């Protein structure tokens, strides 16, 4: 390769080439991360995300943020620390939500006929925006992990409240008290109906009612801090440009 030659004919062409690569990179990054993140999320927190009768005030609130802060932390570790792009978490969540919504509509509804208001995905966007904003303002891994991670856990339930509240309204059905979401579940029996596999919300706090969700969110935020740290370093590892000698294989 001759150093005197140029890959482009003009500065304008160089700019155009650079912009074209930006779009190709963004598209590929978006959909490959979407694929990896979605398979991770559906197999670590999926059941709570699939059905409204799994969206309780205890395990859903605890599990969903903990397992979903992973990829945002890893992608932030690359996009922010290498390119100062402050949208790693939002890109991940947008990808995940796109994959989920396409699936819930075309497959959950379109193939197996569960109504969309029974199988819509959880909203993870408020936590992702806060995570990106905190990283952008602080530029600090520690602050983002501690403040952002905690906020990510705490914001999950309020972020979903406007959607889930109408389905947590109590109803009486055949002499039993349950929520509207539970009633949906009774009408759409699955192999994973929570009562069948005894994954229903239970415990002493439920008896007294009011404090279950905040306690769960606080615990979730605490674990999210630890998971953020861990996945930040995973992201750093995945972002390396190391080559290995082919003779080793």
């Amino acid at each position, binding site marked *: 390769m001759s150093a005197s030659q140029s890959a482009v004919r003009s500065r304008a062409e160089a700019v155009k080439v650079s912009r074209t690569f930006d779009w190709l990179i963004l598209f590929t990054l978006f959909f490959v991360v979407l694929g990896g993140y979605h398979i991770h999320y559906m197999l670590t927190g999926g059941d709570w995300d699939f059905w409204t009768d799994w969206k309780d005030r205890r395990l859903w609130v605890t599990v969903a943020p903990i397992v979903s802060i992973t990829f945002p932390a890893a992608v932030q570790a690359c996009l922010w620390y290498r390119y100062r792009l402050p949208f790693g978490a939002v890109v991940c969540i947008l990808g995940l939500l796109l994959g989920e919504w396409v699936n819930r509509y075309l497959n959950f509804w379109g193939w197996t006929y569960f109504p969309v208001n029974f199988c819509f995905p959880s909203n993870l966007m408020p936590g992702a925006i806060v995570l990106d904003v905190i990283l952008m303002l602080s530029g600090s891994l520690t602050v983002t992990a501690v403040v952002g991670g905690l906020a990510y856990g705490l914001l999950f339930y309020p972020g979903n409240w406007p959607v889930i509240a109408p389905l947590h309204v109590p109803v009486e059905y055949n002499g039993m008290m349950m929520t509207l979401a539970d009633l949906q579940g009774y009408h759409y029996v699955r*192999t994973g109906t929570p009562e069948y596999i005894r994954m229903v919300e239970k415990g002493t706090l439920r008896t007294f009612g009011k404090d279950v969700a905040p306690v769960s969110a606080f615990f979730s935020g605490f674990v999210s801090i630890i998971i953020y740290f861990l996945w930040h370093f995973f992201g750093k590892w995945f972002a390396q440009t190391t080559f290995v000698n*082919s003779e080793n294989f």
Partner: protein
Amino acid sequence: MAATTESVKADAAEKPLLNVRNLVLGSLVYIIFYGWVRWYEGVYGWSAGLDSFAPEFETYWMNFLYIEFVLEVCTAGILWGYIWKSRDRKVMSITPREELRRHFTHWTWLVCYAWAIYYGASYFTEQDGTWHQTIVRDTDFTPSHIIEFYLSYPIYIITGGASFLYARTRLPAYQQGLSLMYLVSVVGPFMILPNVGLNEWGHTFWFMEELFVAPLHYGFVFFGWAALGVLGVVNIEVQAISKLLKKDLA
């Protein structure tokens, strides 16, 4: 750098840097093919896919499986064989413009890989969740598995392998060894396919339909993380492309 009359003439004669037609056609192949597959599932999943002992199951689903096995092995052999056989043996001697053109071709492959990963890891995998929350399996080869495990996963393996081979055989940036993260991002998702062995082994012992987050599925999760290797690939590419464009963008 000012464009000269000669360079303008050369531009008109040479191949474009990015072959947009190939990019669009490559994407359409996945979108149209998987659209047809989804139509097939919709029609024959319910009408012929519920009982693996029924004759129509053999006709519409097992034959689909046998045909896709043969086509996948042939496609992988021909495609990977062609890319390897037609490799550039003087890859370090190409001009910077040719190198740039090859980076665009490489990104056309990566865009195809992105489509393939999306359909395999996202679309057909979560679809399998809702199918088996509805239909309890009586075989390992259910309609959703015949599409998810044995069609969409091999297709992203074939596409990822082709992309990796293209970079390795035609781009100077990949001649210093094997890119660790490229290997991770191609071999990791590839390992999801052998992990199907563990999955099916477990499902033959226990009814696991109840819980999609069952620990039996964690092998898929672990290998799904490998998709993050694309971050390393992006970084290698940004470095290589920056090197080619740097003085013209300054």
